[in-house]
């Protein structure tokens, strides 16, 4: 999920000096020929750094994303919904797990990446800093948030870096399953009692704009798109993907009988696209800065779980060491 293009500094290290024009050109030629770059292949340092940042942000988003949905695990309204939600949150843990593994192939340990998350140095998708206030939010997350994630991620299945591309193939399959489940929750609510329908509308009202923000800054403000495009890490611009999401999602909202909370939304028959209103970029910036409704809470929860698990991890290491000693003896 959730590659929002939050990258701030591309950084030009000394390593780049050693990157001869010849090597860079050969690398670019491989990328241009749609060859997959594998962990042991030579790659420019900036390519490596961009990928570590993007893949680890993606992994962190999966891990933090477990919290807003986990918030309703104990209150799911039927056993079937509970089972589906448990499986979904488990899938997210699984996505985090193999994304960390994919990033590790680039030479950064999971421990370092997790540490960056816990200290607040690393970013994760802004969307998970919003609260899940009703059961309908679980539907809205599946429908909108996973829907937006799929738009972002399907092109990543063709990413030039092999381990990331392969991880994304599996993740996309599961995400589209989640998206359908989310839509199914919305459908039950929209066809339910007036209270349920109001719950669904309220969820759409709160999740619509944050979902559009998931695609990152608009193209004119997106700093690193061009390089990522050239490296075939990224295939479409933020605005292209956002437009695609709006075009797909608005008819679904209509099908549900819900109103998209945008007075400027209209269908433009000439272009075949929906025109939508201006995104509140100030809100986006504030959430990225840590001022979203749940930023502190999400990080605190993650830090607490990590700290409370320290003695357990330590015990597991101590036991493993003892076992090695016993086998050697």
């Amino acid at each position: 999920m959730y590659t929002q293009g939050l990258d701030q500094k591309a950084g030009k290290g000394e390593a780049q000096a050693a990157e001869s024009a010849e090597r860079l050109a050969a690398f670019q030629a491989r990328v241009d020929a749609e060859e997959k770059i594998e962990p042991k292949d030579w790659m420019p340092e900036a390519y490596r750094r961009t990928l570590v940042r993007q893949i680890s942000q993606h992994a962190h988003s999966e891990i933090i994303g477990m919290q807003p949905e986990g918030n309703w695990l104990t209150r799911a309204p039927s056993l079937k919904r509970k089972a589906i939600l448990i499986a979904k949150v488990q899938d997210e843990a699984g996505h985090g797990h193999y994304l960390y593994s994919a990033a590790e192939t680039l030479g950064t340990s999971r421990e370092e990446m997790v540490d960056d998350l816990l200290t607040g140095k690393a970013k994760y998708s802004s969307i998970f800093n919003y609260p899940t206030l009703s059961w309908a939010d679980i539907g809205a997350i599946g429908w909108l948030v996973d829907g937006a994630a799929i738009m972002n991620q399907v092109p990543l299945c063709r990413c030039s870096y092999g381990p990331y591309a392969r991880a994304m193939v599996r993740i996309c399959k599961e995400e589209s399953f989640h998206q359908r489940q989310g839509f199914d929750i919305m459908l039950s609510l929209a066809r339910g009692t007036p209270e349920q329908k109001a719950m669904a509308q309220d969820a759409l009202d709160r999740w619509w704009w944050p979902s559009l923000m998931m695609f990152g800054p608009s193209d004119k403000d997106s700093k690193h798109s061009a390089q990522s495009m050239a490296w075939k890490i990224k295939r479409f611009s933020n605005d292209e993907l956002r437009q695609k999401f709006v075009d797909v999602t608005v008819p679904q909202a209509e099908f549900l009988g819900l109103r998209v909370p945008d007075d400027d939304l209209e269908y433009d028959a000439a272009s075949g696209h929906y025109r939508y209103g201006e995104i509140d970029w100030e809100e986006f910036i504030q959430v990225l800065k840590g001022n979203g409704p749940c930023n502190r809470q999400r990080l605190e929860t993650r830090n607490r779980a990590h700290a409370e698990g320290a003695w357990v991890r330590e015990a597991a290491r101590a036991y493993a060491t003892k076992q090695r000693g016993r086998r050697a003896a």
Partner: protein
Amino acid sequence: MDRDGAPTPDQALLGTVLRLGDNALILGQRLAEAMTHGPELEEELANANFALDYVGQARMFYAYAAELEGGGRDEDYYAFRRDGHEFRNLLLVEQPNGHFGDLTARQFLFEQFYLLQLEALARCADERLAAIAARAEKEIRYHLRHASQWVVRLGDGTEESHRRMQASLDDLWRFTGEPFAADDVDAAFAAHFGGPDLPALREPWRERVAAVLAEATLTMPADEWMDGGGRQGRHSEHLGYLLAEMQFLQRAYLDARW
């Protein structure tokens, strides 16, 4: 009841199925509660898997109970529309998660019993229940291996983990008499369907528990006062809060379908 006050075969079967469903649901709910708080990512994945298995088992038991009882009830009725005194789960499974050692001790002590119970149920005369038990048995065998490994790692890990694990076991030990205390429902189920002789499972349970604790360098607590009553609907204070949270939507929106 028949004339001498003992449960009829139908009552014994339904009573047994509901007790099994309640154990599975309440423990599944506890494990779901622990999600996103795991000590490491691998454990997060395993715990979610176990929660899912338990909720799945609860659904199978409740769906069967609904059929046995008739009257238009469904699996969700048993989970969401009954009050605490109607639940028949063991006190052990409703105990709060506590820290990872507490959670592990609870899983370990319960699953050592549950596996023996399922092994016996898989051979009982009620085909449907035997089939559900056989399926659950496979899942629990895997869970138990995982829980036992953690008991050993924590017991034989660091001084701190040893101390915590021993304290968790000591604390929960008073709930380990209840699973083996048979009442008239169990007696009738054993008589009519060849169900497990619960008191007879106690010795194999002790042996299996003792073997793991020995490897974990932990001490088996002494059998002192044993708590009970859950299987007759008399619970600890913890269950009410668990149910209030779990049942909230179904209670707040009575005519809604989800």
